[in-house]
């Protein structure tokens, strides 16, 4: 089903000539501006919240990868869910023998959007980093990659919570837009006060998908604690999402025909 959805989304995205290339220009412009901003900052200071220029750029890289990943599946699907429930098209999904929550979460997996919109901007950051100035431990990198996956799950769950009020109130696009800061919170993990750090990982997972994995990969945060926090956030928010999803389906009234 996942494969078919990816192919169907690809077919949808390539159905129109020259569609979506405006996003590439927009993201490249954003990245260049950001790189200039970082260069200006680090021309005056050696470290920021314990992060050097290259560590900061590495954080930006992981933030960008996460942002485009999140955009290409979680946000697109949450937005589509809101639209479908609002217009009553969700009826046609609910009458299919599908696990509705899983299917609603993976209906649009836009690989093209990730590659086309995300890759050029990501390449700029990759080439801007002086990799010889960064040191990694293989185990820490592996833990960091696992934490990125856990962070994606936590963020997707949290993001869906912003979409689900549509089942009660008929619309939640506006609420869903609140989730933008979650997808590109590029703050050095160690620069944040410890209690707030836990809240921003477990409760509002703004730091779960990029800041925490980067801190673990760069050896700036304890690996075991990091894994506990990251996977704890994924588990906790997934359970909350499932409970609220069940309640949402009970409240679904469908749109009038």
């Amino acid at each position, binding site marked *: *089903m996942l494969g*078919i*959805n990816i192919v*169907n989304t690809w*077919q*949808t995205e390539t*159905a*129109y000539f020259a569609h979506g290339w405006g996003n590439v220009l927009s993201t490249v412009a954003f990245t260049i501006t950001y790189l200039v901003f970082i260069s200006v900052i680090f021309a005056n200071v050696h470290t920021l919240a314990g992060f050097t220029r290259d560590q900061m750029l590495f954080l930006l890289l992981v933030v960008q990868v996460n942002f485009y990943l999140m955009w290409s599946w979680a946000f697109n699907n949450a937005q589509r869910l809101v639209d479908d429930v609002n*217009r*009553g*098209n969700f*009826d*046609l999904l*609910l*009458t*299919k*023998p*599908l696990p*509705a929550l899983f299917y609603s979460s993976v209906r649009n997996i836009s690989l093209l959007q990730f590659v086309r919109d995300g890759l050029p901007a990501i390449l700029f950051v990759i080439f801007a980093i002086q990799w010889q100035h960064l040191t990694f431990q293989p185990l820490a990198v592996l833990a960091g990659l696992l934490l990125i996956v856990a962070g994606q799950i936590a963020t997707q769950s949290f993001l869906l919570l912003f979409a689900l009020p549509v089942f009660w*109130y008929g619309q939640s696009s506006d609420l869903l837009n609140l989730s933008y800061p979650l997808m590109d919170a590029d703050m050095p993990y160690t620069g944040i006060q410890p209690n707030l750090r836990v809240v921003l990982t477990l409760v509002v997972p703004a730091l779960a998908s990029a800041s925490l994995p980067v801190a673990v990969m760069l050896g700036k945060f304890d690996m075991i604690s990091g894994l506990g926090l990251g996977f704890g956030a994924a588990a906790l928010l997934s359970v909350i999402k499932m409970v609220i999803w069940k309640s949402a389906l*009970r409240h*679904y*009234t*469908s749109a*009038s*025909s």
Partner: protein
Amino acid sequence: MKPIITAHHISKTFKSRGNRNLVTGLWRPEWNYKHAVSDISFEIMPGEAVAFLGPNGAGKTTTTKMMTGLIAPTEGNVTINGFTPFDRSPDFLRQIGLVMGNKAGLNWDLSARQSFWLLQNIYKIPQQRFDAHLKKLAELLDVTAHLDTQVRRLSLGERMKLELIGAIIHEPTILFLDEPTIGLDIIAKKNIRQFLRQIQKDDSITLVLTSHDMDDIEQVCDRVLVINHGTKIYDNSLAALNDHYKTMRYVRFVFDKQPAKAALEEFGELVTYDPSGVLLQIATETMIKTIATISSRFSLLDMRVESVPLEEIIEELFRTASKSSS
């Protein structure tokens, strides 16, 4: 034979927020309650074609939604082939198909064939069976040439036919249709009605149809269930409904020189009066005598006897139901 659908005293009440003010709505929501369906019971046998009929807001679509498991009844219960629809068991969902005239199941940006490929995988239909069934359905509905066209480029009629194929590609035992011919031209409507009749007969599919179009109902269904203000006011065959109104006939007269309204009203109820002719509703038992009297008094150019149209019958049903409830 056991019924395939059983609805036992089902009711549905919708709760909505009356106070939409962002601030005061939090502690003073003022809930409104709308009783969309009140205590309806019915049974549908396998292979039957049943129409749910009623004015806007009567509760037809709500009843369909309860039968398809989209919403749960507030009271009572629905059973379909042993399943409770709202449990949305995959085995139940594989047995039903749903067509909604104003909602799109096919992806607008893709061709119908690309959307059907997704359906094939959702319902796990073996390739050979899928190909054969798609070919048969596309030929029956004359849309083979449109299978590979992007859906947004198709006419409404072509799109609706393809939506219909999407709803039955998995060979359901029950097909729910909500206004399937809405907005279509006469030819497309006719094709869809013939198709529905054919699959009902050939494949013994149970059809549950809601429509405002009397022709849909007359040409597709054998039984009609009339709902008004959420309650059932009639449940019997279409033939029985027509028989009930056989006591009345419509007679259309075209006069050489049209008489005044007052001169005609003594013969029966004047349904229409315009320069092209007059339509009178006359009691069947006195019809011959009345026609003879009219033709002896006035010079007639033409005359035609018609049954009371189904629309009028249904309207009369609603009037009778409203009177008895008040």
